Structures are given as structure tokens and as C-alpha cells.
């Protein structure tokens, strides 16, 4: 089994380490177990995806990592330091883009810098230089309502990236996009990742997306979630979209599909 092996032979120190994390919510007076002993790790600069059926607790797991929810049991260690707070290491891109409608694109993407107390003009200058990388050049002064869906996601991603944190949590960033835009955004995300080399923990429903983007993939069972499968994706990088039809790719896809349907 690849699972044990790859967990023990991580190439990098984990920046996210979850051990035996369990969580249940009280729904209608009853305990509803959501996460059941989930253990995952993300190495420094690594791209790791989390795939699982809808409602299995993926967003809840992210909320635990970034400190919005407390786990009932288990351990969360960020950047190898038990005392480190999430706000200092983690940048979160929630499932909704949550761009502030009253701020221009430029002021939206520097939000985290502003919260950190940095000089606003300096942050704006920094951001302006990156606008074209994020495909937003010329839209600095636009309001979010004037952007297309893909542009909104890129703006939200830029905001996440500009927080200057080592860990990026991306919750289904491309979930609401059409297939063509989605493919473009995936390739573009890999470019951005390559440039910034932050650890990315990525939630998706889309098996191909997970394989195409990631170094490793975790597959979760339906609620209460456990890790059903853990895979290294050893496809060579840089990856081009054509590789989704390669035999290696299809073999991995089959394995993940089996894991998702057999549980």
C-alpha cells in the first residue's frame, strides 16, 4: 500500500500536520459526527489535494486548520510549532470568493496587508505589479460586481497569495466555473504556485483537477470522514493539460474513483 510508505517518507517537513482530528456538530439536538480520526500532512511548498463527497466535512477540516473551529479530539500543528497560531501561518480562500463589494479590486487584494498594519500605498504598489500575473491588469479600479466569475476567483486567490503566508488553504476555488475557464485556471494556478512556492492545500470535487494539480491526493470517505486513500502523484512537472489522457493519469483516476465509490 502506498499510504503508509508516503506518509513516512515525506520529502519535506510538514507545515500542516493533523493527527487523529475528530469533530462533530450538534444538529437538531443530536450529535452528528463529521470528521472521524482524520490525519493529513502538507509539506513545505507542496501541492496537496483533498477530495471527497459533498458534505463529508472538507470545509470543516479547513476551518479547524485555520482556527475557526476547534477539533473535539486530535492535534493540529502548523509549521512544526505547536504554539504557532493559524493567523500567522495560514491564508484561507473560502468556498465563496467573499470579495468586499465596497472595495475596488486593488483594495480587495491588499486586504490582508492592511489588516496586518502594513503601509497601504506600499501594498498597493506591490499588488499593481502582480495584476497582470493574476490576469487582472486594467481592472484595479473596478468593483467586484463588474468582474466575471473567473476574474473574481483570481482576485480572491490574489488576496490569499498577497497575505504572505506559507500555507494556502484553497476551498474549491474553481467549483463554480465552466469547464473551459476551469482548465485555464488550473494551468494558471500551477504557474502561480511555481512562482511563489507556497504550500497549497486544495479542496475539490473534481478527480482530474486533483490529479493534474497535486503532488499528493487524499481521498475522504462520506461523513463521518476518514482518509480512504492517500496517493503520491508522480507525474512529471511541468504538466500540460494533455496529460489527463496519459495511461498513468488514467490509472490514478481509476484508483481514486474506486476509493470514492467503494466507501
Amino acid at each position, binding site marked *: 500500500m502506498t499510504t503508509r510508505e508516503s506518509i513516512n517518507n515525506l520529502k519535506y517537513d510538514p507545515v500542516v500536520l493533523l493527527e487523529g482530528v475528530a469533530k462533530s456538530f450538534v444538529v437538531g439536538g443530536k450529535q452528528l459526527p463529521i470528521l472521524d480520526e482524520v490525519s493529513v500532512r502538507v509539506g513545505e511548498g507542496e501541492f496537496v489535494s483533498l477530495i471527497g463527497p459533498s458534505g463529508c466535512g472538507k470545509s470543516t477540516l479547513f476551518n479547524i486548520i485555520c482556527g475557526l473551529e476547534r477539533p473535539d479530539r486530535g492535534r493540529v500543528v502548523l509549521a512544526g510549532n505547536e504554539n504557532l497560531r493559524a493567523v500567522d501561518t495560514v491564508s484561507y480562500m*473560502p468556498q465563496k470568493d467573499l470579495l468586499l463589494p465596497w472595495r475596488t479590486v486593488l483594495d480587495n487584494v491588499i486586504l490582508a496587508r492592511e489588516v496586518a498594519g502594513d503601509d497601504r500605498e506600499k501594498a498597493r504598489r506591490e499588488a499593481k505589479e502582480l495584476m497582470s500575473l493574476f490576469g487582472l491588469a486594467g481592472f484595479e479600479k473596478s468593483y467586484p460586481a*463588474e468582474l466575471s466569475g473567473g476574474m473574481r476567483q483570481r482576485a480572491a486567490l490574489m488576496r490569499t497569495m498577497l497575505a504572505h503566508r506559507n500555507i494556502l488553504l484553497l476551498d474549491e476555488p474553481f467549483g463554480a466555473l465552466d469547464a473551459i475557464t476551469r482548465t485555464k485556471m488550473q494551468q494558471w494556478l500551477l504557474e502561480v504556485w511555481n512562482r511563489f512556492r507556497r504550500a497549497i492545500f486544495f479542496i475539490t470535487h473534481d478527480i482530474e483537477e486533483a490529479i493534474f494539480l497535486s503532488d499528493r491526493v487524499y481521498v475522504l470517505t462520506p461523513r463521518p470522514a476518514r482518509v480512504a486513500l492517500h496517493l503520491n502523484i508522480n507525474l512529471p512537472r511541468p504538466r500540460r493539460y494533455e496529460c489527463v489522457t496519459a495511461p498513468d493519469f488514467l490509472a490514478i483516476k481509476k484508483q481514486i474513483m474506486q476509493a470514492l465509490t467503494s466507501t
Partner: protein
Amino acid sequence: MIFRLINRIPVTALGIMAVLLVLWEAGVHITGMPVWFLPPPSRVFTALVEMLPQLLDHSRYTLLAALTGLTAAVLVALVLAVVMAMSPRIRQGVYPLLVFSQTIPIITIAPLLIIWFGFGIMPKVVVVTLVCFFPVAVSMAEGMQAADADMVKLLQVMGASRWQTIKLILIPAALPSFFAGLKIAGTYAMMGAVIGEWLGASSGLGVFMTRASHAYQADSVFAAIMIISLISLLLFALIELISRLTIPWYYNERRK
């Protein structure tokens, strides 16, 4: 902009008003009602033209009290709303007091206001503030409560303090609601100032009305009422304009 404004003139409302005025005019003439009791619109209009310099002179005082009171009301309301947003405990303590304050009829504390603030502009300003702060405070506080909880969480993960969250999320999110409340307050402001002047004053539309009614000049009273309505309408339009300039993003989004 101008074109849009012309487009927005409520033609139907003006039409209905014209019909009512004609019925009123005809009704007064047919029943032969005395002018001191109910003057016809034509008579009110003549009075308005004749008294215009005097009315405008009095309006200055009333408008000054109304605007000062409204400004004070906005400041008080914003401070209250922000303080309530600092913590649920504070909100639970302050909100019921606000509601309670509205159950006291302003007229009943009028004698106190005269004792405390004399006969100058101050008691009028206080009445306007008392009448106007509540709708603004409530709409601001409710607007802040209704802010997107996920946006607040996003700021939390960025490490924002409560004050930063209030400044960056809650206040901007509440502005559309704030302006809705301010429009209500704006229409109360002139009324508040006139009531304040009834308590005792030497100039202002309230004084003009008191004098006119003592002299049984119903036409002058109506003329003053028209001026009050007109100024209130202008206040309303001014608030709408400020609102459009302050939160253009809201109007753009709403048009979609």
C-alpha cells in the same frame, strides 16, 4: 444624471395631487366654508407668495436647528451602533435602553428642555436629535448585524482585531441600511425643529405658525406647512445624493 433625475419625477403622484387640489378648491367654493376655517388652495398660494420673504426668514432658523440636530443625531447614532458592535454584552445592555428611550413622548419632556437649555436654539436642536437618532441608530446597528458572517470570519483568519473588523467589514456593509434610516430621520428633522419652536422661541416656522393660528390665519398656517414639506423634500433629496456619492458600489450592484 440629469436625465435620470427627470425620469424619476413621480408623474402619477403629481397627477393625483393635482386632482386632490382641484377637488379641495371646488369643495371650499361649493360649501361656502369660511376662509379662516379652511382656505382654498388658491388662497394658500396667494398667502405663500405674499409671505414668502417672511417665511424664508423664519425657515433659516428652523432649518439650522433641523440640520444641526440631524448631524448630532447621526454622530450619536454612529457612536452607539459602533459601541454596540464591540461586543454582544454591550449590545444586550444598550439596545433595550434605546428602545425604552423611544417610549417617552418628547412633548412631555419639553418643559425640562426649556429649564435646562433656555429659549435659544439649543432645546430645538435637542428635540431634533432625540427624534432623529433612533431610526439612524437602529438601521446602522441592524445593518452591522446583517453583515456577511463569512466575511467576518475571513478577517478573523487574517488576524483582524474587533475594531478592524468593524471598520473594514461591519461599517461599510451597514452603509446602505444606514442611509435608509437617515432618510427616515431626515423627514422627521424639520418636524422636530418646529415642535421645538412651539415650546418657546422668538423666530422660526414654528413661531410663525403659532402666531398665524392665534390670528385665525389658516392660509398662513397652510403656507408654512407647504414650506416645511418642501424643505423636508429637499433634505430627503440631499440625503439620497450623499448616499449615491458615498456608496456608488451599492447602487451599481442593485441595478444589475
